[in-house]
């Protein structure tokens, strides 16, 4: 697998709300998801499309990658408006058939060629939000190499599709999420998912909850975050990054694992913990990920510093 992308936090925002878009670069997100879909009213769709080309360099100047969420029913018009240099991904809601992904791929391929974008740059986020999408999950995820991660089968739309409450104290999506995760793992692509952490309030700005959720997700091996409110960005960045203690622990595990070499044993117990090649692999994974997170943090800090320097020069 290629080097994992660091996408711990991301804000989804209506591209028509200027205040959100103009401040996006200050938020510290790993990505910004410009929305053309549910947060944009029908009469503003055309206007929203016209804003994307300029919004891409605007929201990414703090180092964030740029995604756009398009409308399920306006694929061609939306793609024509958004596939410009600087766009990393098209998020496609309510994916239900592989033919939809094939069509997206064809249009994106043409637009990349016409607009001087390196072929294959733009990823497709195939969001599974309906029972039909779950049932066709394997075909959808395999439909294009642009699908780099896969998951879903939870959230508002899925709740609506199944006719169930979204905020209950237990996991109501075990089956669908399991199906999609098994598909992603079989294809060797990143799993988009999270372990269940009860949230019965539905709050989108609870930083503590966001941190707990992100930390639990990371400890389960997940890497992808995102949200709707700036208050969850920093908690997600922090929760998805290994803590100093985790890094120290990983070094300790590797040290203990090295003790096994040449002993003829495949495992031993140290301080009540089993140390074997699986623990060693996890430790190496933690260290690699910590490294990637640190690099991503530097990248963003440098980008922000450049913007601030340019601004202070302009104001002199």
């Amino acid at each position: 697998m290629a080097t994992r992308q660091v996408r711990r936090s991301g804000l989804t925002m209506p591209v028509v709300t200027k205040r959100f878009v103009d401040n996006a670069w200050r938020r510290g997100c790993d990505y910004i998801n410009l929305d053309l879909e549910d947060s944009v009213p029908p009469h503003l769709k055309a206007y929203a499309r016209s804003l994307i080309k300029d919004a891409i360099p605007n929201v990414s100047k703090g180092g964030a990658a740029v995604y756009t969420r398009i409308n399920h029913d306006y694929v061609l018009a939306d793609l024509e408006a958004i596939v410009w240099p600087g766009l990393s991904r098209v998020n496609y809601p309510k994916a239900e058939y592989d033919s939809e992904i094939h069509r997206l791929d064809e249009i994106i391929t043409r637009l990349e060629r016409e607009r001087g974008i390196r072929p294959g740059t733009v990823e497709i986020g195939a969001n599974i939000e309906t029972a039909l999408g779950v049932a066709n999950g394997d075909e959808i995820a395999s439909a294009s190499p642009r699908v780099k991660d896969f998951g879903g089968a939870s959230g508002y739309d899925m709740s609506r599709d199944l006719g169930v409450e979204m905020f209950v104290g237990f996991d109501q999506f075990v089956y669908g999420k399991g199906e999609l995760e098994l598909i992603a793992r079989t294809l060797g692509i990143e799993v988009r998912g999270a372990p269940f952490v009860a949230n019965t309030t539905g709050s989108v700005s609870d930083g503590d909850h966001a941190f707990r959720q992100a930390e639990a997700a990371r400890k389960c091996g997940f890497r992808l975050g995102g949200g709707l409110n700036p208050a969850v960005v920093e908690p997600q960045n922090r929760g998805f990054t290994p803590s100093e203690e985790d890094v120290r622990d990983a070094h300790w595990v590797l040290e203990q694992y090295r003790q096994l070499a040449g002993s003829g044993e495949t495992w031993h117990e140290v301080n009540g913990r089993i140390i074997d090649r699986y623990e060693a692999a996890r430790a190496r994974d933690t260290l690699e990920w910590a490294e990637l997170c640190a690099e991503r943090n530097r990248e963003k800090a440098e980008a922000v510093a450049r913007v601030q320097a340019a601004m202070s020069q302009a104001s002199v």
Partner: protein
Amino acid sequence: MSTKIRRSWLLVPISKADRLAQARQAHADVVVLDLVEFVTEEDKPAAREQVRTAINALQGCGAEVFAQVDPVLLYADLHACVWPGLTGAVISRLESSAQVVEADTLLSQLEDARGLLPGTLEMVAALETAQGNQVAYDISRASQRISGLTLGRADLIMDLRPEPSSEIHLMPYLMQRLITVAHATGVMPIGAWWRAPDRGLFATPEHTYQAARRGRAIGFQGSLCILDNQVESLNRGFTPDAEELQEAQHILAAYQAGTLQGAAAVKQDDRIIDRGTATQAQRLMALAEACARREQEKTEALSHPPLAIP
């Protein structure tokens, strides 16, 4: 439906002679001689040389003997393992029906070459990767020899880590999927419902017992384990307990009394007992009896002096 009582499957590294001697006394229903998980790469060639002796050493202890082999090293591993006294092979990390067919063919050849009855060696498919679980149904139907499915060490191999709830991520889904496929194809679902901090088949005797009870409740019939002190927990956990038996007897008595009077269903306390309930109770009692017989068999076997190793 398998009628064999195989509640505890004790994994023993072939390269460890002391563990083998202990395994004889461990009262496991099945001993699995391992060439995959607990034998280092360097030790494998020497370990293969020892399999025949190990199988002989376990004869007469009352446990069935399986060998765990690597599908990537299938030829070498099966050549080393197929000897009289072997009941079957646990094939780790199986990922396709083609691998099952390959193993089936090889087993047939080895049965001929080594004087075993054709078609008698069994296979247990360990589905420990995403790919293997994805095609579980195909794998389970790929050979008549398949007699069981297990997730083996999927938690480690797929790197599934504990959730805040202590459930091991994805396992509730994978377990139910495997159990459904196993029952659909008439083979034994082997596993237990482990929860953190248990990992990779390691757990205290008490946790192992709890995992076995939960596992039995969702349809598992026996589980792999690694430590000798887990065996008793598995044997007990997968055997109906006294309370369950008493309940089953009550149900049957009430049902029989009812049917004598021409009723299809009777009310006992606040429950309705019909043919389905009675059948279930009968099965539970049959399982308890079979478990008791199996225990006696092992005890008797161990009371005899070990056979001399040729």
